[in-house]
């Protein structure tokens, strides 16, 4: 057998296959997608390595006397604080980097949670049909009739009411992930169910059934890989949505405590100073939030088009 006909194996080969493939070509030739990807990965790297990149440590006792300094290019600004300081004397740039880390973590974890939940329930509903399908999809319909943010608020409220004050602050992060993740699983479930309905009539599924392969294995080994395309697309778009949901909840004051910077809490605290002219405390975190969610959205849009065989290029 020659090399040309045998499938190449190993991660290096997979990588080179990816770079030879249509998707990469499509990406390279789409300037908008490239720009969005650069912004998103740039921001993500800066956030992941915030501990090393940030010029100051916002968790280490700031000096109140440095408070309310404007960005360095304004009069009264200082070289030490590139984007100025907040009301506590913390460096706004460092706060944004650390805040972005929290926002990204919450966003990714929430998307992961809703993907796992939505995909599993969608697969089960689509594959087994009947009563199981009806029950799962009616629950999904009910939840869909509530705005997502309301569901998130409800979960947040219930969890904080059932735990004591002391544990509430420590639980803020997981609760936020739970609240956003649980409010967002429906669209994954619906998409996956629709795809599964199509796939389960395919020959390969029929064949597997005849061979008495257990349903669980058919679902996750055979069907799942074939329906992941749309899930990846919704997941990407869902990330932008989850980041904004985190910011919204924190802005409303039910997210993270004020001592733990996230983009939402930064915008909230800064918002109090909009009228008094200290715009940098809220504008910079807000711009970062816009850049982050916009780049994810643009990238997700491109991915949807690229993975859709009906929109040929």
């Amino acid at each position, binding site marked *: 057998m020659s090399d040309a006909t045998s499938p190449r194996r190993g991660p290096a080969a997979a990588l080179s296959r990816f770079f030879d493939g249509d998707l990469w070509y499509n990406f390279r030739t789409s300037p908008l997608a490239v720009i969005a990807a650069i912004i998103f990965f740039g921001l993500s790297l800066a956030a992941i390595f915030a501990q090393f990149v940030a010029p100051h440590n916002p968790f280490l006792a*700031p000096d*109140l*006397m440095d408070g309310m300094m404007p960005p360095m290019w304004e009069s009264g600004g200082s070289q030490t604080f590139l984007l100025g300081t907040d009301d*506590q004397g913390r460096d706004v740039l460092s706060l944004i980097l650390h805040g972005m880390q929290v926002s990204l973590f919450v966003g990714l974890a929430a998307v992961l949670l809703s993907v796992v939940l939505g995909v599993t329930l969608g697969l089960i509903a689509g594959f087994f049909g009947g009563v199981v399908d009806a029950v799962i999809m009616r629950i999904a319909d009910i939840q869909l009739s509530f705005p997502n943010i309301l569901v998130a608020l409800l979960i947040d409220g219930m969890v904080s009411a059932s735990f004591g004050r002391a544990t509430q*602050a420590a639980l803020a992060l997981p609760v936020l992930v739970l609240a956003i993740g649980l409010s967002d699983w429906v669209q994954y479930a619906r998409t996956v169910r629709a795809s599964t309905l199509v796939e389960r009539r395919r020959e390969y599924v029929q064949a597997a059934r005849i061979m008495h392969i257990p349903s669980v294995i058919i679902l996750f080994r055979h069907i799942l890989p074939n329906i992941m395309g749309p899930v990846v697309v919704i997941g990407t778009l869902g990330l932008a949505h989850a980041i904004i949901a985190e910011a919204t909840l924190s802005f409303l004051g039910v997210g993270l405590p004020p001592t733990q910077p996230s983009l939402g809490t930064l915008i909230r605290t800064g918002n*109090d*100073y909009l009228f*008094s002219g200290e715009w940098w405390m809220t504008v910079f975190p807000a711009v970062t939030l816009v850049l982050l969610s916009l780049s994810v959205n643009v990238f997700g849009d491109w991915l949807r088009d690229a993975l859709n065989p009906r929109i040929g290029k």
Partner: protein
Amino acid sequence: MNKLVAASLTALMLAMGSSSAMAEKITWSYSADLASLDPHAYDNTFNLGVLGNVYEGLIERGPNMEIIPALATSWEVVEPTRWRFHLREGVTFHEGQAFTADDVVFAVERSLSAGSVIKGSKMSSVIGAEKVDDYTVDILLNAPSPILINNWGNWYILSKSWAEENGISASPTTEEMQKAYSATHANGTGPYKVQSRQPDAKTSFVRNDDWWGEFEGNVTEVDFRPIGSAATRTAALLSGEIDLAIGLPIQDQDRVESAPDVHLLSGPELRVVFLGFDVDAEALPESNLDTNPLADRNVREAVYRAINTDAIQRVIMRGKALPTAAMVPAEFHGFPKDLERYPFDLDRAKELMAAAGYADGFSTVMECPNNRYVNDEAICTSIVSMLQKIGITVELDTMPMAQYSPRIQDKDVRRGIYFLGLSPGNIDANGLMQELVHTREGNWGTFNAGRVANDELDAIIEAAVSEGDIAKRDTLLAQSQQILHDEVYFVPLHQQTLSWGVKDDIDLIQRPDDVFVWKYATVNN
């Protein structure tokens, strides 16, 4: 038929037009909602201040805090422990009940009950009340109290028969009081009636045209709308959505002063904000230490010296606060004007920590309200950073005043450090001592959240309550303030300033305790 509809519509519109032209309405806002409509359930100057427009007491405080007769027309001291009050005749409650001595006896009883949170501030030395006749009542004391009525500027009378009809108990627990019928319904004798209430959104009041007094102002309708976000409150004032913002954020004062049609009203407030410590030697719950470091005077002085009040005053308060070494405002009787702050000195603070055996520091919890005092949350956050510099790791727990206030008065809750600002209604240094410093027992120490128990102070405080000779009493007040300072039971931060943003077409009186009295307000069209 069409003509008839058209005619009645026109008539309706005319009627509506004329009534709105007659209504002089004020819409005003504050950072927090009323915690309750019950005048005995929360001891909070703001809450009681609003209710003072609906309910009335035997006396009231005038525009400059002077005492004026309200439901009592006159009073005399029959013997040192028995005061006789002659009540105003012909007064009715909003729901029609006649006001009599029975209602006063009922209010005294309810205020003295085991669960009452106001027995320290309003009922100090009071042990009961006796009806003499329908319009005369005697208040009985366990010790002479020359300034008894000074405590009653915001102590109000409920209707006894209304209370009995609606299951409002005369001896409720604290929790029952918070959930009573009277927490959501009001029936006072005052110049305004509650018309409708949506918690956290809007409470509407209308003028009580049957009120016994003379209205100096012309306001017929009042809407109270709490707005939590500082920026939104300022925006609402600037856009004309509200006529008055009480607790205008200090960062927005310049903006309001330069804007057309609105102006700023400010002045010193009768309130010092401070940090309190739990000084009980027993280890705090959730602490890894087997003793409470804050029971050590040196540790408390270290905390005092680690707090940079100048920075707080300049950056957070923007110069709109008066740093002080005293626990009471300069306007109070018994203000210790010669006290000086322990200066801000981090090195000395670290030495003191080391001397107390905490060179490596410790961790503790700090409780702080987030919608009551000027920039309360920002001040607390900055203090967390300041204490970090001397090795004290503080976990900050902030909450709205509706939760914070009952928590502070709950004697079973312990916390390391707490942030508070009291404005005792009697405008007297001893008023603060009775509520905050005296060992918590009976009517004493209802705000003693730090478990301060100092026999010497208790004796001085009790003596000052009964002392009739002003010079001797002043010596006692000075002594107690000095001990407070020497023992560092508290870290006074600053005296707050009032900050109201008001529309130009409204004339009103800004009382120094930050209370808005509607009957003095006038809307000019």
